[in-house]
């Protein structure tokens, strides 16, 4: 019976310690909710401008370059987030040799519009742009610009003449302390 009492006391002390630490942490961070509840109270949302047709080029030939197209990303949620960028063909038929031949360069800017990172270039293929993690986090309410340039190399062969590809750019956002 005494041992059972001690066991119960141990449980009670454990709950008390965890509860106290969580409450103090919540007080210090000025959150009104406790522990893990903070996460469920937050919202994670992200918006892009434009929302469609960043690239629309017809009749491209080898040596084509789209020029840098800017994307504005805004964290419209209440929690900070980080994100990855990917490209995928809209339909199976869009995954053709033209899609496979396109190259990309991706630019990341900070909030002062200064270039902070370049990904791709040097013949990097658009189809390989998969889950590239953006270095900077996007804080709640913050807005940043990214740039993407697409090109068709001079070495593109005749096989791709007359082909069309449709693709989507995907931003996969996750809360700042999350793992992809």
């Amino acid at each position, binding site marked *: 019976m005494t041992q059972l009492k001690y066991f119960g006391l141990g449980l009670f002390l454990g*709950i008390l310690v965890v509860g106290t630490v969580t409450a103090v942490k919540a007080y210090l961070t000025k959150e009104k909710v406790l522990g893990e509840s903070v996460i469920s109270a937050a*919202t*994670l949302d992200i918006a892009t401008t434009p929302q*469609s*047709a960043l690239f629309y*080029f*017809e009749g491209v030939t080898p040596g084509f370059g789209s020029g840098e197209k800017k994307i504005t990303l805004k964290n419209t949620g209440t929690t900070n987030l980080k994100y990855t960028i990917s490209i995928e063909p809209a339909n199976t038929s869009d995954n053709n040799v033209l899609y496979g031949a396109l190259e990309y360069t991706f630019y990341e800017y900070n909030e002062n519009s200064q270039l902070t990172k370049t990904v791709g270039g040097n013949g990097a293929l658009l189809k390989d742009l998969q889950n590239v993690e953006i270095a900077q986090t996007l804080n709640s309410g913050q807005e940043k610009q990214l740039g993407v340039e697409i090109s068709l190399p001079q070495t593109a062969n005749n096989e791709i*003449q007359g082909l069309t590809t449709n693709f989507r750019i995907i931003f996969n*956002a996750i809360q700042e302390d*999350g793992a992809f």
Partner: protein
Amino acid sequence: MFWNTNKTILIPFVLVTTFLFFLPQKARAFFTKEVFINSNLISAGYWEEYDFTTPLKASDSVGKLWLAGNFNVLYDNLAKTLSEIYTKEEFVNALKDSKIAGFEIMGEAVYTTSAQAYVVMKIRYADNSSREYKTVFNYEDGSWKLLGTKEV
């Protein structure tokens, strides 16, 4: 000594703190969201001229396109009768593995009507074998369109 004396209280204490502190961290799901920029389109133009103005030039163009494996452009130069049977995708998929090693035009074009003609082409394959085909063209919309081929 301390453990042995107090293990009855220490065991539940350690268990409950571990559970409450660490398990939720491991088990929690992170918020995620995917957003898309849809409807991006790139279409390739034509940068090599293929001449379909006469049956003879058309047969040379067919040979060049076949040799290059450029069945997309070949499809664009099919006679309606043939292009109505297949979609471009079906046509390209059907021919994508049938690339050739070379071709030769055998003689002049033979006009069967004012709007139909054929040219005999000798096709050479990768194993150096060769076959001759009668390549038939229809005159449609101002140019000679491929109607079909038949082994001679």
